[in-house]
């Protein structure tokens, strides 16, 4: 099972990739929403199962990315989890309305990420306990 980590911070991409790899995902990366759309397009008819999406990024922000993905029927199986420091009640409502499935507020523990994926029923094989 593959996951796409979208965050402009290389450090946060490393943190998320490490945690997702430990849960058994093969991980792809993108540094902004535009790059992420390119990565998705390059996966053709075999897109990843999951994308973690930062909100504040240069070029294309996470909310715009979520809206763009939701307009494409070939990516309707892609589960979108916002992973962001935006933590107002209204921002979470906006992200869910735009089509994000789940929302994880930074800072988050590895257990909190695993809990969210459990809620979404994403269970890759080969997880390291």
């Amino acid at each position: 099972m593959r996951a796409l980590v979208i965050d402009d911070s290389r450090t946060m991409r490393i943190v998320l990739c490490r945690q997702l790899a430990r849960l058994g995902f093969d991980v792809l990366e993108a540094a902004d929403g535009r790059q992420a759309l390119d990565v998705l397009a390059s996966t053709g008819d075999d897109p990843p199962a999951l994308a973690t999406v930062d909100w504040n990024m240069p070029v294309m922000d996470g909310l715009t990315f979520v809206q763009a993905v939701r307009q494409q029927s070939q990516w309707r199986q892609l589960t979108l989890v916002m992973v962001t420091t935006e933590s107002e009640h209204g921002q979470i409502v906006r992200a869910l309305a735009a089509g994000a499935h789940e929302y994880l507020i930074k800072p988050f523990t590895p257990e909190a990420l695993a809990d969210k994926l459990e809620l979404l029923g994403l269970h890759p094989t080969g997880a390291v306990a």
Partner: protein
Amino acid sequence: MTPAATAYELRSADLAAITSDVWAVFCDVDEEFPLLPTTEAPADGAEVVHASVGVSGAWNGQVILELTAVTAHAATAAMLGQQHVEPRDMTDAVGELVNMVGGNIKSLLPTPSTLGLPVVVRGRLLQAEVPDAAEIYRAELAWAAEPLRVSVWTSDHTPGTNQGRQQ
């Protein structure tokens, strides 16, 4: 069901609590050194890194994180899970730390506002970098005996905003 309509008044203790949560999760992974409040200001002479993130919209200002190079290095190493740290790693990691602190502080300020992208600079913070702004909140913290300061600056001078410095 109904979000509280009354405006929340940010406190210096919130700065400390938010920063401590960020540190506990990403920097103090072995739970050896919690980030604790202190009354001591950073000593002169130590090499310092400062990072800022702007907030604009219903509230305008900046959230600034100042830490020693030693702390910046240790925090970066903890986040990356490796001891070897390049200068660009440190810039990126400290930028993400101020992004997390700033975003959570933004959620306690008047909405709607937008969080900018972080800027990280080596060296002591100069007043000239926050033109027309005044510091309104500050928390002095210490991590493994190294000082760390979080402050909130605003350029808003309209009534009804969180004015008045609180220590």
